[in-house]
């Protein structure tokens, strides 16, 4: 049973991609398919990032170890959807005009921020295999704390695109806020237990 969890989660995480593919081939993306793909892949990146961030708290609260066993996979799926998002932008929106791409990354703050978040996810993805974990030792954990920054940048990137109504950014932003506060409070709580007098 336990062996089935990973393949099951893998298939579930692939579903949004399969649906997108189906919509592409059925020509069901609306009159502006590029825009639609870009929005969809961006939103799924953020969702997977938030799922990845909630796995550790879920394990700590429920004591169920399976949550963290799929953490790396979920994180890699966030990178996967981010790569799709980046590729859609590169190929369909900017049509590989490198000069323009460079200009856009530098001149448009929301793109700068999104690009930085993507670079972070890329580095985390590259250093995710077990061999890299062993090689980096203590630094691995420090490096991978950057995922918090990536999540915050992702929400800011979204906030910057929204106009008139910031509902979506408020939703994703509050989830990030809750997840980060949980970690911070837990950190304080544990420190107090170890050094009850100092605090």
């Amino acid at each position, binding site marked *: 049973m336990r062996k089935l969890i990973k393949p099951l989660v893998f298939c579930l995480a692939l579903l949004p991609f399969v649906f997108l593919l189906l919509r592409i081939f059925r020509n069901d993306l609306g009159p502006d398919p590029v825009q639609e793909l870009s929005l969809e892949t961006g939103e799924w990146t953020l969702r997977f990032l938030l799922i990845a961030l909630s796995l550790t708290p879920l394990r700590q609260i429920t004591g169920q170890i399976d949550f963290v066993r799929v953490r790396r996979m979920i994180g890699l799926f966030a990178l996967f959807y981010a790569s799709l998002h980046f590729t859609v932008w590169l190929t369909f929106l900017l049509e590989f005009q490198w000069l323009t791409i460079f200009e856009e990354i530098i001149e448009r703050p929301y793109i700068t921020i999104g690009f930085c978040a993507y670079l972070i996810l890329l580095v985390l993805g590259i250093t995710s295999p077990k061999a890299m974990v062993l090689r980096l030792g203590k630094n691995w954990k420090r490096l991978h704390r950057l995922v918090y920054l990536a999540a915050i940048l992702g929400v800011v990137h979204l906030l910057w695109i929204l106009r*008139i109504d910031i*509902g979506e950014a408020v939703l994703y932003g509050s989830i990030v806020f809750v997840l980060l506060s949980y970690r911070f409070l837990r950190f304080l709580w544990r420190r107090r237990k170890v050094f009850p007098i100092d605090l």
Partner: protein
Amino acid sequence: MLIKKPADIKSSEITPESVYKNRRDFITDGSKLMLGAALAGSMPSIASAQSGASLMARAPASMRRSAPAAWWSGKFADIKSAPRSGPYYTGESLTPYADVTRYNNFYEFGMDKDDPSSNSGEFKADPWSVEITGEVAKPGRYDLEDILKPHALEERIYRLRCVEAWSMVIPWIGFPLADLLKRFEPTSKAKYVEFETIMQPETMPGIRSRTAIVRWPYREGLRMDEAMNPLAFMAVGLYGDYMPPQNGAPMRIVLPWKYGFKSIKSIVKINFRETQPHTTWNDLQAQEYGFFANVNPNVHHPRWRQDTERRLPQTLFSRTRIDTRLFNGYGEQVASLYEGMDLNRYY
């Protein structure tokens, strides 16, 4: 003695309006087709001389709307078709009706492009009145029927360029904005005209949202000479049919040389004034949305490059990207309005 008489016809037996209308369309289209076939070659113009039949574009029969009120159908019975040349016409292929009516920015109905079409079912375009205020000889509240009465409807095919870098080609039905504004006799003090969109919170979920960072109602404005330009159009329909709510029913402005957000929808107030009015987008982010908002490929918006545009509809593998033209290609008609103005500063 009271005897309850059953209804003569059970409601289940009544043919829905859309069905019999379709049937009529089918019959008339069919007879026109036969007539057309008979005359083909010899006198092709006769079939199209029939009123309305010569319109460039018609909404698909299955998607046609019912009139907001009975008097509308008379209004739409006779529409002057677009001339086949000049600024009121373009030979570029039309954006299909389904896309024009399902890909909209109308934030009162929601944030996503398909929200306006899916969320506007309850919208009430009748009864409707428009309040005329400010520097005019004839202010007051006018019923829509009275507003439209003297104006003959005509078709115009305009390009629509959105500030988000996409564009469409749409066959509008309406009349020149100037003809309407003149009727209220603006005074010499009227230098600007301000428009306001209806607030119908009970039918507009976007207005009810608590995370909105905008102050409703939506407002737009024009300099008087811009509003009086012959290109400025007051539209009450599209594709030969009544205006759908998501496109600004019952009455909206169309300004083809400006970014789409200037073309305010569902108008309930027109105010003539001496000073430049506040406008929604300009108030929200002045460095991104200017008061003039003329289509200009040389002035980049902080979010979107403006030198090219995506002509809709697209598919993923056939993407029409075209160069954006100054004033959306209507320079001949409107460039004189901005002579001597620094368009980089007054964007």
